[in-house]
């Protein structure tokens, strides 16, 4: 029994050849059978990924399965397989859960089949299961054995990731015995942008440090993160990479520094995975680009559903006004924000606002995150991933060297004596410094809390947006909430107008929604369906583990080049040559051209073998002529006698004691040469021997006749029972008292009963056909 809310059903998408279209053929309700279906659906995924790409319809099947972020926000992970190639997009964890429960449903896939893993940006919900998933060692590292096993079990039936308390079950499992065959065999390559990789390391180290879960529940440790770094390759925006025939490149996504949208091209079918993106340029990031090619499938985030953001200027104004008025009244401003990403944007805003307002200079701004402090070097370096404004400013001075903002290492160094602005993580107020400050400040109505971004369901930040009268503090007590709470979203996710125009420009025939809370997503789906009504655009929003199947029947095209292509052939002319496939391109060429157009080369092996022989060369010639149709004397320039057999093998008498055979290797020549060797050896062993050929033949004929007679008799007896051999090859057959005479040579039958006569005749004819050689001419 599977206990999860991502009901594994599948959406099957049929299509006309050439053009993929999306039709949900079956979306089965949750029932016992649907689970069955789900299993087989997944089985077909696994099978598809192993199948060679040469097959028919199966080879054209594309299966896309969200392993996380299907109708939810968090643990982004989308699995895609097509033409025997497998790509995994993102590899995140769910921030609201801990331990195994936070992972995507990795058990549904076979990691060893993944060719490429593409990580769009550094946020935990997109990158944080990376050290855990692909990098488990092949052999013998004991401390990771348990998680490996648990990982499999939690996926199959022990844990419901939506109810983290169930993880307790895992602890009782002794996985050590199961470990060896369950270990991950990920062999693929991981790609992310330079900035993402630099921050990824810092962020995950921090994550491991602050994770409050028990040690048993740790998914990985710092060593795993370091190890994972070696596996990660970097890709720059627009740079085209090719792995195993999969071509991919990335576009600016605008969400955070280094965020990318990946375009994957497998055999001409393009898939765009947006990750988190924003189409609005802000202070340091460029807006997401519009790819110059329309993808066949667009896997797009739907975080904000059909909501619409306020213009950035309005939001910034509200933000600075709230901050200004609060500190002017002597209050404190708490900005709970995730340490990286939007935080840097807010710091840029505050730093500039302070520069323009000298009266505020005495009021300190802190960012209380050692992590953000560490990452500042990354922001100061990868200027080229940012927008032109930052690049131009950089020409003067680095905008990420703030003038009015200080970093704060811990709450102990913080002297809370007057108005101040503090930005602290985590953004959800779950724990840590932001929670400590919140607990301290929430009762004073002079203070403000500005929530600057998307907040995940189930966190305190989400709760206080609705401004409850009371809140529960970290120590369990309740306190009145007097602090002003402002929700000003700077979250760099696309809103509905952005999503809508983006899709309108791209016009992908298939849209798959991920990364959105179920209600938002279904509203967005409805709006998009009505927006693209009348076109053949299909919109689906699969749940976790629900596969979307599509068919792209692509025509395989080949290019005939070189001497084979000197003339374009007419219909029904033959084309014979080598077909060479590299990636998804085919070339047809003559073998002689192989080394001209590819890195491959052909070889020719000449064999020369010396066979001891000391007789007359004429004997060899005579014996060979008896066996082979074509035995010619070698062209004159030879100074020694030589023969050419079937234009393949040259036999030369090189000295008194041996002959040499020379030929160029191929299966037939090898065979001919072997028999020539045998003939020569026979001559030297037996010497010449004259055989009375005719006599032997006659004798053989008689013999055959006798054997045939015997066989006919035996078969007749087995058919009719009582059979006697008469004279001159006649048979006397008696069946139920009726006697028949069969002439063994002519096949004539004498019998009163017509039925029996016919039966014997038929039987005899068939036996004859089987026993005797087929006559040369059909008579």
């Amino acid at each position, binding site marked *: 029994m599977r206990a999860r809310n991502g009901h594994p059903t599948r959406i099957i998408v049929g299509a006309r050849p050439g053009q993929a279209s999306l039709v949900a053929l079956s979306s089965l309700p949750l029932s016992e059978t649907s689970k069955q279906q789900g299993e087989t659906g997944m089985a077909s995924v696994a099978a598809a990924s192993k199948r060679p790409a*040469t*097959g*028919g319809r199966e080879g054209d099947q594309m299966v896309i399965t969200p392993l996380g972020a299907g109708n939810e926000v968090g643990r982004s992970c989308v699995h895609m397989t097509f033409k025997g190639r497998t790509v995994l997009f993102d590899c995140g964890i769910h921030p609201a859960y801990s331990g195994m429960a936070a992972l995507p449903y990795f058990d549904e896939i076979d990691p060893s089949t993944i060719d490429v893993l593409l990580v769009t940006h550094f946020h935990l919900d997109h990158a944080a299961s990376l050290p855990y998933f692909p990098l488990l060692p092949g052999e013998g590292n004991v401390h990771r054995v348990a998680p490996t096993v648990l990982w499999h079990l939690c996926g199959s039936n022990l844990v419901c990731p939506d109810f983290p308390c169930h993880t307790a079950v895992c602890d009782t499992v002794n996985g050590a015995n199961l470990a060896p065959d369950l270990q991950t065999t990920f062999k693929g390559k991981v790609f992310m942008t*330079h900035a993402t*990789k*630099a921050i990824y*390391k810092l962020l995950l180290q921090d994550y491991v440090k602050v994770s409050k879960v028990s040690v048993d529940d740790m998914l990985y440790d710092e060593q795993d993160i*370091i190890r994972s*770094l070696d596996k990660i390759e*970097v890709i720059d925006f*627009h*740079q*085209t*990479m090719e792995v195993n025939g999969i071509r991919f490149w990335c576009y600016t996504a605008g969400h955070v520094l280094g965020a990318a949208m990946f375009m994957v091209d497998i055999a001409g079918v393009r898939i765009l995975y947006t990750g988190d993106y924003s189409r609005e340029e802000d202070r340091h990031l460029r807006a997401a680009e519009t790819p110059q090619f329309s993808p066949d499938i667009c896997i797009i985030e739907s975080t904000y559903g059909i909501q619409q953001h306020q*213009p950035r*200027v309005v939001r*910034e104004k509200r933000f600075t006004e709230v901050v200004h008025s609060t500190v002017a009244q002597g209050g404190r401003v708490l900005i709970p924000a995730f340490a990286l990403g939007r935080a840097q944007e807010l710091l840029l805003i505050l730093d*500039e606002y302070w520069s*323009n307002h000298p009266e505020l200079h005495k009021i300190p701004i802190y960012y209380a995150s050692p992590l953000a402090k560490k990452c500042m*070097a990354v922001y100061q*370096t*990868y*200027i080229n991933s940012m927008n032109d*404004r930052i690049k131009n*400013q950089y*020409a*003067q001075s680095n905008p990420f060297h703030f003038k009015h903002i200080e970093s704060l290492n811990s709450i102990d160094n913080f002297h809370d004596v007057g108005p101040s602005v503090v930005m602290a993580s985590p953004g959800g107020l779950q724990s840590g410094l932001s929670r400590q400050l919140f607990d301290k400040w929430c009762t004073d109505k002079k203070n403000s809390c500005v929530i600057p971004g998307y907040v995940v369901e189930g966190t305190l930040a989400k709760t206080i947006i609705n401004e409850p009268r009371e809140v529960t503090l970290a120590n369990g007590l309740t306190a009145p909430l007097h602090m002003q709470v402002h929700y000003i979203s700077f979250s760099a996710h696309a809103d509905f107008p952005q999503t809508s125009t983006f899709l309108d420009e791209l016009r992908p025939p298939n849209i798959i929604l991920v990364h959105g809370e179920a209600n938002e997503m279904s509203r967005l789906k409805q709006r998009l369906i009505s927006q693209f009504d009348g076109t053949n655009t299909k919109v689906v929003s699969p749940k976790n583990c629900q596969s979307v199947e599509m068919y792209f029947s692509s025509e395989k095209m*080949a*290019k*005939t*080049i070189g001497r084979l*292509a000197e003339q*374009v052939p007419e*219909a*029904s*002319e*033959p*084309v*014979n040559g080598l*077909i*060479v496939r*590299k990636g998804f391109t085919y070339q047809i060429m003559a073998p*002689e051209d*192989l*080394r*001209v*157009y*590819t*890195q*491959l*080369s*052909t*070889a020719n*092996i*000449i*064999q020369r*073998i010396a*066979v001891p022989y000391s007789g007359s060369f004429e004997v060899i010639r005579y014996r060979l002529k008896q066996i082979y149709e074509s035995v010619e004397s070698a062209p004159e320039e030879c100074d020694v006698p030589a023969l050419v057999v079937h234009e393949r093998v040259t036999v030369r008498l090189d000295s008194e004691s041996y002959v040499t055979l020379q030929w160029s*290797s191929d*299966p037939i020549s090898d065979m001919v040469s072997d028999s020539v060797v045998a003939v020569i050896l026979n001559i030297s062993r037996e010497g010449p021997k004259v055989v009375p050929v005719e006599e032997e033949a006659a004798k053989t004929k008689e013999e055959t006749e006798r054997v045939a007679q015997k066989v006919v008799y035996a078969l007749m007896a087995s058919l009719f029972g009582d059979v006697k051999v008469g004279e001159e090859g006649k048979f006397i057959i008696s069946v139920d008292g009726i006697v028949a005479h069969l002439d063994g040579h002519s096949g004539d039958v004498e019998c009163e009963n017509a039925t029996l006569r016919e039966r014997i005749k038929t039987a005899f004819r068939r036996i004859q056909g089987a026993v005797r050689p087929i006559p040369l001419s059909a008579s």
Partner: protein
Amino acid sequence: MGTSVQVTPLSGAYGESPLCYLLAVDGFRFLLDCGWSDLCDPSQLEPLAKVAPTIDAVLLSHPDMMHLGALPYAMKHLGLSAPVYATEPVFRLGLLTMYDHFLSRWQVSDFDLFTLDDVDSAFQNVVRLKYSQNHLLRDKGEGIVIAPHVAGHLLGGTVWKITKDGEDVIYAVDFNHRKETHLNGTVLTSFVRPAVLITDAYNALNNQGYKRKQDQNFVDALLKVLASGGSVLLPVDTAGRVLELLLILDEYWGQRNLKYPIHFLTNVSTSTIDFVKSFLEWMNDSISKEFEQNRDNPFLLKNVSLIINKEELEKLGDAPKVVLASMASLEVGFSHDIFVEMANDTKNLVLFTEKGQFGTLARMLQVDPPPKAVKVTVSKRIPLVGDELKAYEEEQERIKKEESLKASRIKEEELKASHGLNAKASDPMTIDGSSSRKSSNAGSHFGANVDILIDGFVPPSTSVAPMFPFFENTAEWDDFGEVINPDDYMMKQEEMDYSMMHGSGDGLDGKIDEGSARLLLDSTPSKVVSNEMTVQVRCSLAYMDFEGRSDGRSVKSVIAHVAPLKLVLVHGSAEATEHLKMHCAKNSDLHVYAPQVEETIDVTSDLCAYKVQLSEKLMSNIISKKLGEHEIAWLDAEVGKEDEKLILLPPSSPPPPHKSVLVGDLKLADFKQFLENKGWQVEFAGGALRCGEYITVRKIGDSIQKGGAGSQQLVIEGPLCEDYYKIRELLYSQFYLL
């Protein structure tokens, strides 16, 4: 037939003149590089002048004078107006190189071939690409894809791959296959069998030692001089090879904790290093890895001081020091001045790290034996005094008057016009601002950069009335009241942007170091005073190759590996070009061309090709064998036609037997290893491989050259015995039989 391709060198063929080539691909005209020597002689550019207006796109490969020096001049004076493609570092560092060059020239002469504005506007329409970015050209170039790839040599250095209809033309000059302290080696070798390869013969006759040893020799030579109390001058380029030298020195100084000061002196040294710090993505893997893991940026250069004028250097006096100063040619610039000062002292060393450009002072000093004395011109820009100043001021006054007269006339007209157009008049400052700027530009000795100086209110020289400009705002009324302009009430998105941009001088696209800017913007009238003098060359001179180019041997092996169908050789002395041409021509099916300047050669490939569709039925019957990244099979098919498209179907009659093909590339050494692993006694004897007691395997014919005609010929011979068949079996196992 294939794509038509023609190559015409405009400079830099059979000689070491700057690189500049014209490449036409199906009529689309690329200018490959646009170089100029440090001498800046416009006569060098005559061939370019003839074709410049017809160019459709410019591709730049390296950020130094030899590859992009003539770009501003060509844009300004020769009518070159095509879009320019380059990588981000080539763009940035190229810009800085040009700034540096201009400033060096301007300090010692009334340099007027191009101005900083020309540099800015030339670089303004550079399209910046990333490595391996496939950029599709539009309009006339429809169907052409260009992609920059790593070349090594300089930061951002590019090997250009131009693809049309699946045929590649590769332009690879000054590549370096070796990984360096800050750069990755070129990826040129990953391109196989392009239709055309255009490469240089510059280094065909040079061979280098090992890099590590070379680095050691380099620092040893420096330390020897420093220890004996001398100073070292390294004439370097602005933002190219100098980066490698800086890293080597900084690292060594750090390791040994050396105290001798290192100075990097160019007009733009600080901004160069600032930008380089943000180009980590373009450097080698270990640098980016180091940053990702520890956030260590090697270009923080703890042991190097970056200076932008000579005064700072002079403060140090005669203490032993290492100075890296631009330009490498010693023609002008800081290196020239420092050389003049240092040449007289035997303790000092001038160490050249690259071969001097032809006809420059550096080249003169690099001959063996070096000259005892050289004639140099020492020039200096000094402020005008006395009568000269007076004359200058009068002249300026006159110009100003003329300008103001003209401007006021224009203004009157504008005023008339603006009275007609009320909407325009509502914003009077616009007009004032622009006209004042215009006139002050014209009046200034030095172009538009003056507007950086304009700080606050500047009374417009063209003011019609000696009072604050006032324009009556005649409001129009209609039935609803005063007509309003909706724009006045719009929330201004730009407002914030403007405030951020404010104060960042928008006159210069890039950043010129403050000191240089001061020097440059110093508007006091000045003149250049020069005097010729003879400098005794007493200091020691040395040359070490830090050019970061593949040496002759490697160039040959790279070409052999890439195995283009056609090879075009450019940029190298006549001797080197001929040498490489002869070497490559040995290979029978490689066509080698070495065109002269302005000689057009046609390298259109004679490749025949047509496209067919592969039917599903046919493909399901084909079992292919995997060979590395290729899959290969024998194909017997029959052509069918389906609405004008060719489609391959399974043959209707049994196909004739074909001669079997052995596919594979056997190296005897590998085979030896293989047999040894199988427990055979194997040894090389007389070029053949002796296996066991009697069997020999050898290669015949010249099949060592890749791309050679025909296939590899192997001979296996021996007496009839069991071993023979066993060895043959093993030999067969090295090939695929089709």
